[in-house]
């Protein structure tokens, strides 16, 4: 694949990227989305231009408007010989940023990178178009592991196993995928795929259930649960040293051990007190602190990069709803105030959105929810039951 090349050749009053804010503000309806006007495309039939518009439309905090006078930004795309000239105008200040894109073989890849740049300029927040999604899905009767881009346009089947493979987790560096493979005679194996060389190796297998929760932020460790029928255990697997450390064990049901981005702390789900709740666990002091009190059924935690907030699924009147909360419980909000089941919420790496999965009959859709405005968009739908969505 040819190297992608963008020439940013005119940048007046450049936006200061160092000013990006990492403050998380959950459920603030006063925040309005950015209004974007797209001028009549003179390059209408060019796939790259169409893809770029499609990607920007996926963002819940960008609204496309028909009237330039009502817009915060205007985007025009023109063909310039073999290249494409993309001009972003800040309507209030008349600042102009121009991108020239040379012809490229991989339009999806190019559009993703270009969308990231434009999103950053418009919202002052890092783009998330390079996010990778992993999930499992039935493939001729056996569930396999899949890797997708944010739009579902590039989906790769990573496994071709004879038995079910589920619960994939991808590393923050997007180079490793850990997943659970079932044995026909009971028992499961945790396997690790290295996306750089496609090696798929077993790292831990036993009778019972072995399920990974997440990688550590540096990608060198995997947190997973192992249940042998008697005791639930949480292990850390070191991908460099290739060894295991048992960090916690309990007779309670333990699930979803995940990174928290809080020093030396992981989180997990336990039904220690009778119903599933989320706990923070300090790896040094070996002490756990209960984080969720508001609902009887709180599972699937995912932490923001700042470590100040997390999202989780609570079952309310039989419906799985997504809530966001600060770790101290003071800042708390329902993100899905509709009668629809959502699962597998994950915080985007720009702190602004939540990815989540929802099933509708035999279709599954991946949604992106703006944590501040609660606006949401559907990223893509597949004609299958997707499960165990995870993103990085």
């Amino acid at each position, binding site marked *: 694949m040819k190297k992608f090349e963008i020439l940013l050749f005119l940048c007046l009053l450049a936006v200061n990227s160092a000013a990006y804010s990492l403050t998380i503000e959950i459920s603030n309806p006063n925040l309005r989305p950015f209004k974007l006007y797209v001028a009549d495309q003179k390059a209408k039939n060019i796939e790259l231009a169409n893809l770029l518009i499609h990607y920007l439309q996926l963002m819940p905090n960008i609204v496309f408007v028909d009237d330039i006078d009502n817009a915060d930004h205007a985007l025009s795309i023109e063909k310039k010989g073999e290249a494409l000239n993309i001009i972003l105008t800040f309507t209030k200040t008349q600042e102009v940023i121009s991108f020239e894109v040379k012809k490229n073989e991989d339009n999806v890849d190019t559009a993703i990178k270009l969308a990231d740049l434009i999103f950053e300029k418009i919202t002052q927040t890092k783009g998330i178009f390079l996010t990778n999604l992993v999930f499992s*899905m039935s*493939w001729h*009767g*056996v*569930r396999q592991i*899949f890797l997708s881009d944010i739009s579902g346009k*590039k989906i*790769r*089947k*990573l496994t071709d196993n004879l038995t*079910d493979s589920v*619960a994939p987790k991808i590393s923050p560096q997007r180079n490793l995928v850990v997943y659970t*493979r079932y*044995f*026909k*005679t*009971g028992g499961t*194996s945790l396997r690790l*795929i290295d*996306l750089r060389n*496609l*090696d798929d190796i*077993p*790292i*831990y*297998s036993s009778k*019972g*259930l072995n*399920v990974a929760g997440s990688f550590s932020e540096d990608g060198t460790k995997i947190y997973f649960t192992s249940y042998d*029928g008697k005791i*639930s255990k949480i292990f850390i697997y070191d991908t460099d040293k290739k*060894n*295991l*450390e*048992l*960090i*916690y*064990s309990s007779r*309670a*049901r*333990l*699930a979803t051990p995940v990174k928290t981005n809080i020093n030396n702390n992981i989180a997990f*789900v*336990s039904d*220690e007190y009778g*119903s*599933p709740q989320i706990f923070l666990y300090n790896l040094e002091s070996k*002490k*756990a602190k*209960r984080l969720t*009190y508001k609902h009887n059924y709180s*599972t*699937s935690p995912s932490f923001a990069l700042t470590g100040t907030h997390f999202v989780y699924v609570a*079952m309310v009147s*039989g419906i*799985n709803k997504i809530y966001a909360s600060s770790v101290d419980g003071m800042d708390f909000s329902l993100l899905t105030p509709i009668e629809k089941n959502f699962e*597998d919420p994950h915080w985007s790496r720009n702190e602004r959105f939540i990815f989540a999965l929802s099933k509708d009959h035999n279709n599954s859709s991946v949604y992106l929810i703006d944590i501040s405005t609660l606006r949401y968009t559907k990223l893509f739908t*597949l004609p*299958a039951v997707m*499960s165990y969505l995870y993103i990085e």
Partner: protein
Amino acid sequence: MKKSLLLLFILILLSACAKQKVVSQPLQPEVKPVPKEEVVPKEQEKPVQSVQETQIQQKEEAKKASVEEVTPTMIAKAQTTVSDSSSEEVSVLAKMIHFDFDKYDIKKEAAEILKEIADYLKANPDIRLLIEGHCDERGTREYNLQLGMRRAESAKKYLIDLGIDEKRLETISYGKDKPLVDEHNEEAWAKNRRCEFKRIK
């Protein structure tokens, strides 16, 4: 007389106090405040020493991952259902046991079925069994995996108590991934909260 009056006075006073006490009873049972500070989970074992397991089981082989690109059309075609091996099972192993929501204790009806299965296993000592735990669609997938495993283990323990050798029984959980009935009502949920029994071939 004075003593009697004093006694009467004390009795009236006590009676009044008793009445007051009844009135001031809270209407709701007392709810203890949930601890908000650090809690050490009840059942944690002693602080775990750093266990370095150098001998990781390598039963499975290393291999290469696939890189096949798939399209929605291919995905739709791949959603074919494969006939379940349970249909080949003898009638007793085709029976299932069911559970209450978020529970894994063996109910009376389930105990009767497990007794039948135990008798069958005793009459067929070469047969080994895989017990699959399943859940309904409510709740989240990873937590339901753990719940399904508890259900399978409950059934296993019950069979062991009925005299079946532990080595003949294996367990696994599919959580809510393999519903028996793909509907969204109480009747379907009740059918999906189950254990299935598969002969290990």
